[in-house]
């Protein structure tokens, strides 16, 4: 689905990514690489296939949109270097022509040289590309920039007649900010209290639907 935001064209993909054609930029959030391995190390049985599945999906998005830049608005790595991160390193070689920029989230705590080894450019706080500010969590004070964030893993419930309801991950767009869904499949959903005039774009297995 294509939308317009502050005069810019953005494509909302059902694979939980935004493509910004004029900058040839693919934007995702909350990839949480290494989460499943971190769980396994702590004695909780999470199959590694789930992390591999995330990377395969991301690869397919890159093949589809052919971006020059992959921007991740935080929580790219869940915890520390582990076997899942090694899997990512292999994946990185396949897409070495794509520049990866990470805006640090609360989870991103690898060492500077680790990011360098993985060929990832790190922005400590935010990335300003008018009209947008890319940042992990929404800043408290609003200004002229339109904030594009991640962090909260937004979800939406659609209510129908006869007490029916369905729940999906979603994109959230208000007048001042947007929130990306978490890219990783191994994440939960949380509810957002919308501002006046805000829009939700539910991500169904088939497509993206404005709600």
């Amino acid at each position: 689905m294509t939308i317009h935001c502050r005069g810019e064209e953005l494509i909302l993909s059902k694979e939980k990514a935004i493509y910004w054609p004029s900058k040839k930029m693919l934007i995702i959030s909350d990839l949480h690489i290494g989460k499943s391995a971190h769980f396994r190390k702590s004695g909780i049985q999470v199959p590694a296939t789930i992390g591999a599945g995330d990377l395969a999906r991301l690869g397919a998005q890159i093949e589809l949109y052919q971006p020059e830049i992959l921007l991740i608005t935080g929580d790219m790595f869940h915890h520390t270097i582990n076997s899942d991160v090694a899997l990512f390193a292999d994946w990185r070689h396949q897409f070495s022509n794509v520049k990866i920029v990470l805006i640090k989230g609360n989870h991103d705590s690898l060492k500077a040289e680790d990011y360098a080894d993985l060929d990832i450019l790190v922005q400590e706080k935010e990335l300003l590309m008018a009209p947008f500010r890319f940042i992990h969590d929404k800043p408290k004070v609003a200004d002229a920039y339109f904030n594009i964030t991640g962090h909260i893993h937004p979800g939406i419930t659609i209510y129908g007649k006869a007490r029916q309801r369905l729940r999906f991950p979603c994109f959230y767009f208000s007048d001042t900010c947007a929130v990306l869904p978490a890219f990783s499949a191994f994440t939960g959903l949380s509810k957002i209290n919308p501002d006046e005039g805000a829009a939700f774009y539910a991500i169904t297995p088939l497509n993206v639907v404005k709600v």
Partner: protein
Amino acid sequence: MGIEKSKGFKAVLKWLKTSKKKPFSFQSDAWQYYAEGYCGLVNAPTGFGKTYSMFLAVLIEELNRQADLPAKDRKKIDKADAGLKLIWITPLRSLAKDLARAMREVCAELEIDWTIGVRNGDTSAADKLKQKKLMPEVLIITPESMHLLLAQKGTSNNFKNLRCIVADEWHELIGSKRGVMAELAISRIRGLVKIQSPERLLRIWGISATIGNIDEALDVLVPYPELLKVIVKADLEKKIVIQSILPDHIDMLPWAGHLGHKLAHKLLPIIYKSKTTLIFTNTRGQAELWYQNLLKLDENLAGQIAIHHGSIDYELRNWIEDAIHTGVLKAVISTSSLDLGVDFKPVDTVVQIGSPKGVARFLQRAGRSGHSPYETSVIYFLPTHALELVEAAAIKEAARTQDIEARQPVVMAFDTLIQYLVTLAVGDGFDDQQIFNEVRETFAYRELLPSEWAWMMQFITTGGESLTAYTEFSKVEKVDGLWKVISRQIALRHRLHIGTIVSDAMLKVKFITGGYVGMLEESFITIIKPGNSFTLAGRVLEFIMIKDMTVLVRKSKLKTAVTPSWMGGRMSLTANLGALLRKKYNEALDKTHADEELDIIFPLFERQARVSHVPKDDEFLIELINTKDGYHFFAYPFEGRLVHEVLGALIAYRLGKVKPISFSIAMNDYGFELLSEQPIPLDEDNIKQLFSPDHLGEDIVASINATEMARRKFRDIACISGLVFQGFPGKYVANKHLQSSAALFFNVFSDYDKHNLLLRQAYDEAFYQQIEEPRLAAALHRIQASKVIIVKTESYTPLCFPIKVDSLRENMSTEELGQRIERMTAEADKKSERQK
């Protein structure tokens, strides 16, 4: 030799005589069987000294042993024989204190120098440490704490001198995974005793109230073929008087609801004329509301009534229990936390508010009053909505005919077994062949296949079947030939989560000036703001803030405030009661009965007959109602909530095969509702086909797949097996990096690890363990043989109303997802435009 001639028996008899008592024959029978090396189950009504039947058996043995010892060697032998002699399993913490007190008294009187220890969630760290150094002779313990004991290092040496394990209130444990925990712990302790003291006979005894499957209850507790076993049944009858609190007119009672406040004023005279009244409610929230309500009706009751439930702080509960003992309280409002065993002498009246859902539970609660032998138990039933009056009539009949339901033992719970294996690995470690053999001997896992065992061993050692999918997995490792947990963090986390009762994360509630009040679910606290008030333990409290995972509060100036809701399973009507209920519906309209409850409800039945129909027990009623909410389909099999849950999904699935359609499904103990936004493809011709018992198995599997039932069951399974951590009051594990949800694991395993046994367990629990297929098939056969009556009406009827207002709903859809979303978003848009 006969035990009567032994010194121990004579000493006990002499002691009983000092208080002008002599043993009941079931007691002396139990002593005799125990002395002869039997295991068994004592079945006696409450109030006749069930505890003594077992405890004195062990003491007689001890007295006889002492008498046989040569005086000069006594010290030496006693030293070698030190430590645990008797493990006494109780299901409830509140029982332990009173039991210990009674046992200490007996030991003192009989001059037996034994220590009686208590071990449960309320035991202090200092006491636990003391027990670790030297075990008391008698340990009163919950199933969870038994597992915690097994999770201790060096625990294997605790049982060298153990003589007997008693499972008290076994009827209460047998139908749950807590019972499975007891079975497993017993199997391990028995295994240890066999290895360490092969000459010693470890006896296993249970004490149980009457249930429908008492023989099976003994087989579950003592599944070992080489042990002699016996059921000792008391030939005594407890007199119980059941009295309904009736409205003056049926219009005083609502058609639906669970509070029953409208009859509250009729409760006051009962409280006044009784010494102490125990008032049982079905939920903690209901207890809080009734406490407030009684105080509103009569302010003079302040200080004379108290409230008791599982979320109230230990100290406070203790104080209340003591106050009941001393008789200073006029009434106590309680949930199942006071259901069992405790012998409160001053209690002479019991009140049950709302349906007790089962005969056994109701009689159990009645037994809380008139606790002494030959006293009469008095219980009042206060209905919360009109149709519960019929239940009252049914329960009276069941009590009269002693038609008491069975408690089905839980079998093949993989989650509980996985937790147990890790528990052993956290303790002294285990040998897989040895434990496999022990586990296979238990009732719960006698059908366990070697392949399933292998899967579980993989699950805890390598993570799962496919090695590559679980790289870096670490939990249980082999060290010096034994499977152990090495990581201290994993061990700590596991200890905190031993147990099978799953709740939302709980937070402790504390006054800012100090002093704990109780516990709240985290989900409740997230919806109230600082400055707002709520009630807990009967007090109105103002929420200040959350600090260190503790809810800080101060006394509120408000008189009333919102009442927190605690989650917790909804109980389902048992099959026995369901059948009786159908019979009572028959009698109500015919007036062929002697039940005053049915006289009162007669006008409501007339109304039901006028707008719809009152089903006889050879009829099957279906109501079709069209309202602005959509098209409603109500069916009334009267089989209890659990059966209706499965049946509702089954019929929805079969209707969905006729045409693509979406339903929301609701149910109660009488029937179920299917609600759709489009007309339901149903008529006289296809109705019997819909309820056909043909292809039942496959259709059930398909309908469970199409709903959220298995997913909901997985919530508990994920917690018990250690995938997801539930919060612990005061012991919150601050490890955000490892937080996840059961729903997520359900998806992950469904997508990536289909053969996961825990997934299979979720589906099995959704059906096979929830209701037995024969019961469902029997219900369908009955419906086939019934006369189907389809009524189309314009408005809700007295019968359907309680179902319609139930908010807990299941969804089922055979529509194409895309179309469904399109339709639903269009409906939502229309709705929001209307609101503008």
